[in-house]
């Protein structure tokens, strides 16, 4: 071919490319600009290749038996600016490759000389009729093919006979291989589409996934045909198509700006894309921030990723493939009302055309997501396609209030809550329940630290919390888990939470405020959560906990930036958290919040500091409880909340509260405190000598709140010796297992002792009438009508003492500096029935008064703290030692 001719073709090609680029740059703000450009470039390349082929038409070796095909991306009719041309010379075998070598080489040379980067290959048609061992990828690439030039009949034979026959016989192997290589690729990118500088071709949710979706759809259709049934038509793919257009435009943009086939969306590329308003539609003169543009990017990538994962889920399981375990957790068939789980996917029982479509029933739909949360299964494509159009009906029929909270709580508490929430979010169902979540959909916090969008960060945080229940020694990557020790410790805190759902709900809501333009997203998130509380009809205790956690969710992270061993830091932090339960929840939320910023954000160093801060703050809260007392004249929100319940009794309420530890107020709802106040008003006047007074003068008030699994018994009485011991003994006599307790007294000598217990023999549960007898029995023991020792002797049902799984050594310590006027006695011992009474009786026998008691259990360990005085003073060293010896004996005797 003459050089002049080649030059003329090259010029023609280059002018065509320039025109395509100019048109792209003029229209790059439109979503479809990229697709138009790549299709135009493919057409231009077709024209050039065909012109070149025509120039060699006189070569007799090329007249028959050789067909030139476009394959790969070029075969799909798409050529990105710096992508290679994938060409296949298909040969019928009538001439050897050696014979054709020169002819083919000349064409390839011309193509290169025209400025096209081509990747040519030769194959005999017979080689295309079977899978090449170890290289099924060749067949996959052949699935996208177009005739360019040469022997049409040869091409038709491939397209209409050879390839369909191969796919019909080998589709299972091809599906398996395609799933394998896709999962391997996803693994390389940590199975997430959230990267600071994503590769828009290879990352999950990228353009490679679009190709995978196309191939899998074709192969599944062939598979369905082989089994003689029709594959259901996919639902609405408009969003998927739009997402593909968006990414195609981004890829074009990157190629042009990098000047090479580089598909990484670098930081500066994001800025440039935003400045150009790339693929967002017409933005007018409005400047787009890079974080706003990236929000669009992640939304589109998420759509593609979701569809890809759905299609991967459909693949039949291949024995022995560990990669399949990543997408399958359950193979057991599970049946529920309206749907069932099959091969890890949820399928509705009845067709969409049925009279009562289960997809329209909110209860069934919420059950469905509870099932996902429990089992970690996924929605089938068909189920998703039915749920999306059902949204308006679901919105209209969704009940609010406790019923809704019941469902939602079950979802939040289940081990795969994150997956269920992601599925709900993708379908818009989460926003029906929590509209506040809409503001953080794909919201990007654009800095070098935040890897995930705000919504995904929330889900990762919830995943992290649940993962604390079962920490693993080796990570899925094969590396050792460096955080194992810390996951175990924090996991222990999670296991002890009485209301973990409140923690998960706080996690869900904690960053919703970022969707608003506000300087303090914590306060805004808490404010937004108020609407949720009223929709779910939360009581003040529940909403108080969640609100407090959200408002203060950064308090621990902030404290970590200061000297965590400094008392002032501890004091300020402890005042923010107020109670041990809040502290525990905050520690967990902080642990997971840091973890969910970035996979490497929580280092063992940070985890250790967080743990140290937690235990220092926990000890600080316990050590200051005795000194930190209510001053009724002080203006306090906590006091105000109680007095507003009965403004007429405001003076009396303040008098009642005077001298109680602040802990008492902080760990009760205003309603509970008011109820105790009312009980105190029924007590007889204080006797001159309470120890010798008649039973009527020693009357007490008891309140039983029977609930499963933990009930509460509260005593309000005038202080005298052995009240606490008697309560503990009475509960032990009735076979109750004390889980935790506290005891507080005010300045006027009124005590409030609350015991949370488990009814081991289900006496009160099975026999409601026994509750009245139980209360009478306790009252008689407390007023001296009946001797507690007699009660213990006649009623004690120890049952079979189980052998403890963990043996706990008894530890007794005294801290004379924790309080200004009491000695802090701390006892750690094996949690067995009667322990608390044994301790309390021994303390009373040594003429000590319990000012404050904080009783807790952790597994088989009882952890009891008592602020005690002897005749109104701290214990001296001698008395403390005597008490220690006596406690050791009493505890050992009780254990026998």
């Amino acid at each position, binding site marked *: 071919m003459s050089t002049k001719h080649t030059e003329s073709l090259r010029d023609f090609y280059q002018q065509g490319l320039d025109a395509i680029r100019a048109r792209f740059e003029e229209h790059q703000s439109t979503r479809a600009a990229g697709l138009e450009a790549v299709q135009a470039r493919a057409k231009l390349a077709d024209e050039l290749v065909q012109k070149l082929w025509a120039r060699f038409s006189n070569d007799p070796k090329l007249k028959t038996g050789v067909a030139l095909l476009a394959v790969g991306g070029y075969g799909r009719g798409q050529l990105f600016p710096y992508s290679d041309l994938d060409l296949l010379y298909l040969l019928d075998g009538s001439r050897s490759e050696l014979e054709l070598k020169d002819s083919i080489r000349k064409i390839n040379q011309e193509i290169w000389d025209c400025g096209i980067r081509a990747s040519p290959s030769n194959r005999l048609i017979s080689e295309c009729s079977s899978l090449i061992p170890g290289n099924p990828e060749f067949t996959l690439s052949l699935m996208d093919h177009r005739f360019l030039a040469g022997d049409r009949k040869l091409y038709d034979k491939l397209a209409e006979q050879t390839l369909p026959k191969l796919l019909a016989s080998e589709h299972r192997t091809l599906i398996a291989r395609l799933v394998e290589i896709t999962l391997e690729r996803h693994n390389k990118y940590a199975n997430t589409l959230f990267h600071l500088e994503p590769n828009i071709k290879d990352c999950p949710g990228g353009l490679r996934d679009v190709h995978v979706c196309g191939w899998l759809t074709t192969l599944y259709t062939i598979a369905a045909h082989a089994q003689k049934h029709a594959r259901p038509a996919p639902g609405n793919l408009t969003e998927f198509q739009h997402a593909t257009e968006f990414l195609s435009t981004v890829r074009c943009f990157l190629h042009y700006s990098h000047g090479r086939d580089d598909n990484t969306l670098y930081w500066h590329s994001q800025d440039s894309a935003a400045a150009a308003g790339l693929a967002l539609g017409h933005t007018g003169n409005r400047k787009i921030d890079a974080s706003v543009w990236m929000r669009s990017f992640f939304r589109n990538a998420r759509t593609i990723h979701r569809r890809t994962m759905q299609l991967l889920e459909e693949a039949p399981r291949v024995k022995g493939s560990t990669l399949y375990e990543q997408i399958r957790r359950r193979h057991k068939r599970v049946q529920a009302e309206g749907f069932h789980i099959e091969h890890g996917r949820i399928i509705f029982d009845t067709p969409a055309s049925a009279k009562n479509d289960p997809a329209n029933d909110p209860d069934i739909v919420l059950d469905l997501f509870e099932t996902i949360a429990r089992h970690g299964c996924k929605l089938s494509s068909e189920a998703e396609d039915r749920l999306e159009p059902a949204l308006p009906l679901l919105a209209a029929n969704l009940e609010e209030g406790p019923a809704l909270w019941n469902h939602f709580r079950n979802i939040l508490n289940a081990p795969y809550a994150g997956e269920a929430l992601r599925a709900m979010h993708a379908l818009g169902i989460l926003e029906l329940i929590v509209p506040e979540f809409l503001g953080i959909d794909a919201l990007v916090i654009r800095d070098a630290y935040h890897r995930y969008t705000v919504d995904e960060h929330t889900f990762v945080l919830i995943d992290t919390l649940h993962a604390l229940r079962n920490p693993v020694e080796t990570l899925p990557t094969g590396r050792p888990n460096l955080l194992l020790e810390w996951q175990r410790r924090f996991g222990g805190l999670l296991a002890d939470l009485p209301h973990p759902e409140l923690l998960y709900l706080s996690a869900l809501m904690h960053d919703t405020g970022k969707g608003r333009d506000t300087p303090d997203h914590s306060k805004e998130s808490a404010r937004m959560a108020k609407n949720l509380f009223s929709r779910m009809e939360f009581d003040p205790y529940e909403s108080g906990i969640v609100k407090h956690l959200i408002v203060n969710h950064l308090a621990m992270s902030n404290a970590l930036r200061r000297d965590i061993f400094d008392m002032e830091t501890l004091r300020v932090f402890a005042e923010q958290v107020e109670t041990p339960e809040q502290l525990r929840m905050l520690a967990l939320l902080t642990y997971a919040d840091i973890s969910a910023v970035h996979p490497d954000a929580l280092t063992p*160093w940070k985890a*250790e500091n967080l743990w140290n801060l937690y235990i220092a703050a926990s000890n600080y809260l316990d050590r200051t409880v005795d000194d930190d007392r209510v001053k009724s004249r002080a203006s306090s929100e906590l006091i105000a909340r109680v007095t507003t319940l009965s403004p007429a009794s405001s003076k009396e309420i303040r008098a009642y509260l005077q001298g109680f530890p602040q802990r008492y107020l902080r760990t009760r709802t205003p309603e509970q405190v008011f109820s105790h106040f009312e009980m105190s008003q029924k007590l007889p006047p204080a006797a001159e000598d309470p120890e010798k007074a008649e039973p009527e003068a020693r009357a007490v008030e008891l309140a039983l709140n029977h609930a499963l699994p933990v009930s509460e018994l509260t005593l309000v009485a005038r202080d005298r010796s052995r009240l606490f011991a008697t309560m503990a003994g009475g509960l032990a006599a009735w076979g109750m297992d004390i889980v935790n307790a506290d005891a507080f007294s005010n300045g006027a000598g009124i005590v409030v002792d609350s015991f949370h217990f488990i009814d081991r023999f289900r006496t009160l549960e099975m026999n409601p009438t026994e509750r009245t007898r139980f209360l009478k029995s306790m009252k008689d023991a407390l007023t001296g009508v009946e001797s507690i020792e007699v009660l213990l002797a006649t009623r004690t049902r120890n049952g079979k003492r189980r052998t403890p799984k963990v043996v706990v050594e008894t530890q007794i310590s005294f801290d004379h500096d924790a309080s200004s006027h009491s000695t802090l006695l701390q006892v750690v011992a094996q949690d067995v029935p009667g322990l608390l009474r044994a301790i309390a009786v021994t303390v009373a026998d040594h003429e000590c008064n319990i000012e404050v008691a904080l009783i807790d259990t952790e597994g088989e360990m009882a952890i009891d703290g008592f602020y005690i005085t002897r005749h109104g003073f701290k214990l001296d060293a001698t008395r403390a030692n005597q008490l220690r010896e006596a406690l050791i004996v009493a505890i050992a005797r009780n254990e026998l």
Partner: protein
Amino acid sequence: MQKIEAIIQPSKLDAVKEALLEQGVQGMTILEARGHGRQKGHTETYRGREYSVDLLPKIKIEMVVADDAAEAIITAISAAARSGKIGDGKIFVSRVDTAIRIRNDERGDVAL
């Protein structure tokens, strides 16, 4: 040129970083560390278990600077990291033969 290694309290990191920026220090390496000098650790008892904090959390900052800038930078670090209490940390200075920028093979002070 000189290498400066400063071991400081974690709570002083922000202040030290700011001070270094004011001195025109462009690059530094920050490491999470543990250690103690005269400030010994302590033991915290929590729910019956003892947790020893023998090695306290510290931050180590490393940088290589030109000779004529070293003294001012050391002074700036000291001032920003100081609280006056035991445990404030230490600064170590050592000689560096040369520095090379990997991207373009620049050597010497210009690579700093």
